[in-house]
């Protein structure tokens, strides 16, 4: 569990995080979403005690990160895949970190296998690709078998197979009851991975809600019927909001496909098409952050 209260970080010229209060619960993958410069990384750095907040607090498992007795056994972090000394081998890098928290060295071999960097474990990390760096960074985060994971853009630079692997891994970690916080600006990835969303814009909290709720807000059912007006009336009587589409089909909000189908059946009306229309996270997110985008693209 990560608790952030009134977190504010002001730099000389701008406010990176502005009075952010949010709780990240265990047992699910929480996506931290926002455009570039919205305060995602600063928030994560404050959680990890790397950056000192101007005001407010961030605690992990009830304590400030800097007061944790065994930080790597509590929290695994991946802030920057390039954060490593290029002259060390992957094994030496992980060994240094394991030793600093008295984690047994056999765990180094375990995480190397787990993230699949076995073949290059004894090569200097200078030549590692971004994707390899991500795997190494994740190995470091998992060294202490932590209860909480804080990962900044972990799929950046991974190939499709790696992205899928990362998604399943995060899913498993959350299912084991751990707290998983993942920052990303990749919508499709978030949609496939996160259960819960925390959306930031210009350092402020824009939304803190389950993924389903955000997508559900923009969900609808499209239904096509030769008796459209009769069906519309039946649906409205049953409590749905109904609109006519240009092609004559009905746009129904407030009901799912089963309910719409049942209403049609009970009213004895024929149905030619019945489709659940989900908003993509991207469109839902864009609607949410429209006003908050700091760097607007100039319309052509």
């Amino acid at each position: 569990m990560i608790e952030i209260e009134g977190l504010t970080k002001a730099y000389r010229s701008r406010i990176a995080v502005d009075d952010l209060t949010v709780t990240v619960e265990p047992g699910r993958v929480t996506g931290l979403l926002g455009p570039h410069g919205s305060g995602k990384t600063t928030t994560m750095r404050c959680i990890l005690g790397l950056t000192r907040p101007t005001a407010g607090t961030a605690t992990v498992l009830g304590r400030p990160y800097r007061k944790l007795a065994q930080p790597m056994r509590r929290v695994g972090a991946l802030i920057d895949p390039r954060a490593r000394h290029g002259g060390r081998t992957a094994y030496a890098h992980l060994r240094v970190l394991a030793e600093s928290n008295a984690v047994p060295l056999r765990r180094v071999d375990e995480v190397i296998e787990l993230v699949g960097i076995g073949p290059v474990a004894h090569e200097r990390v200078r030549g590692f690709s971004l994707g390899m760096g991500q795997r190494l960074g994740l190995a470091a985060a998992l060294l202490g078998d932590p209860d909480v994971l804080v990962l900044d853009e972990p799929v950046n630079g991974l190939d499709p197979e790696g992205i899928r692997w990362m998604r399943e891994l995060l899913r498993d970690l959350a299912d084991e009851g751990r707290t998983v916080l993942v920052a990303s600006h990749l919508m499709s990835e978030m949609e496939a991975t996160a259960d819960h969303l925390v959306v930031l814009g210009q350092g402020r909290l824009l939304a803190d809600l389950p993924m389903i709720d955000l997508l559900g807000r923009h969900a609808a059912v499209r239904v096509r019927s030769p008796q459209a007006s009769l069906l519309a009336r039946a649906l409205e009587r049953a409590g749905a909001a109904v609109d006519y589409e240009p092609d004559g089909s009905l746009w129904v909000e407030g009901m799912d496909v089963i309910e719409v189908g049942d209403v049609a059946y009970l009213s004895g009306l024929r149905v030619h098409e019945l489709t659940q229309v989900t908003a993509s996270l991207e469109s839902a997110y864009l609607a949410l952050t429209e006003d908050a985008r700091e760097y607007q693209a100039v319309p052509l």
Partner: protein
Amino acid sequence: MRGKVPFRAVVRSEWSKLRSVRATWWCSAVYLLTVGGAGWLAAAGTDTAPRADVAISTALTGFGVGQLVLVVLGVLAVTTEFSSGMALVSLAAVPRRTRLLVAKTLVVAVWCALLTVLLVVVCALAARTQIAVPGGMSMRNPDVLRALGLQVGAAALTGVLAVGLGAVLRSTAGALGAGLALVMLLPPALALSGGWWQVRLSQALPALRVGEDAFLAAATTWQVGMAVIAAWAVAAWVLGAVLLERRDV
């Protein structure tokens, strides 16, 4: 909750850090070769010396420039953490920052001292075998032992000074420049300019060669020399620790 991580674990990690980069081995090799080589050559070129401590002093000449390598070693141990971004990971792993700096300093200082112990033995052997001293040269001579001990102590303090400079300045170029100026350029430059104040100032800077026979810098007694380098090392280190605690990474 299990107990907190023991300090020796952090020290072990810092030792692994130091020995897993090539720079450490390059610096150590250059240090051993320059100081040992210079000492042996100086001894070989000197036939006789009036006293044992003069003979040993000749053989220790190489430390005058050689210890500069220890400045490089100590500075790199800190600044490469910041230049590579490793500091993010290191400080997330050990968020008690002063603890991390103490462990790193300990490892660097002990490594500097160990290399120097090896070197003073080589230099003493060179003096003993190459330079004729009336009455012979006993290794138990207190003047000889003091000269050797001072080099070891000064080497450890140089390591501490370098780590401190690295923590204050964070950039390799900046910290190396400052270190070079403090221990290598300013002391002789001021001493050679000759004014009273300049000479006093030169004596108050941590020149590498501790003792009466300061390398090109204004000479001091060994007590003053050690006090000066210790004061600089402590001051730089404390400032480095305070800044490390305060600043964001």
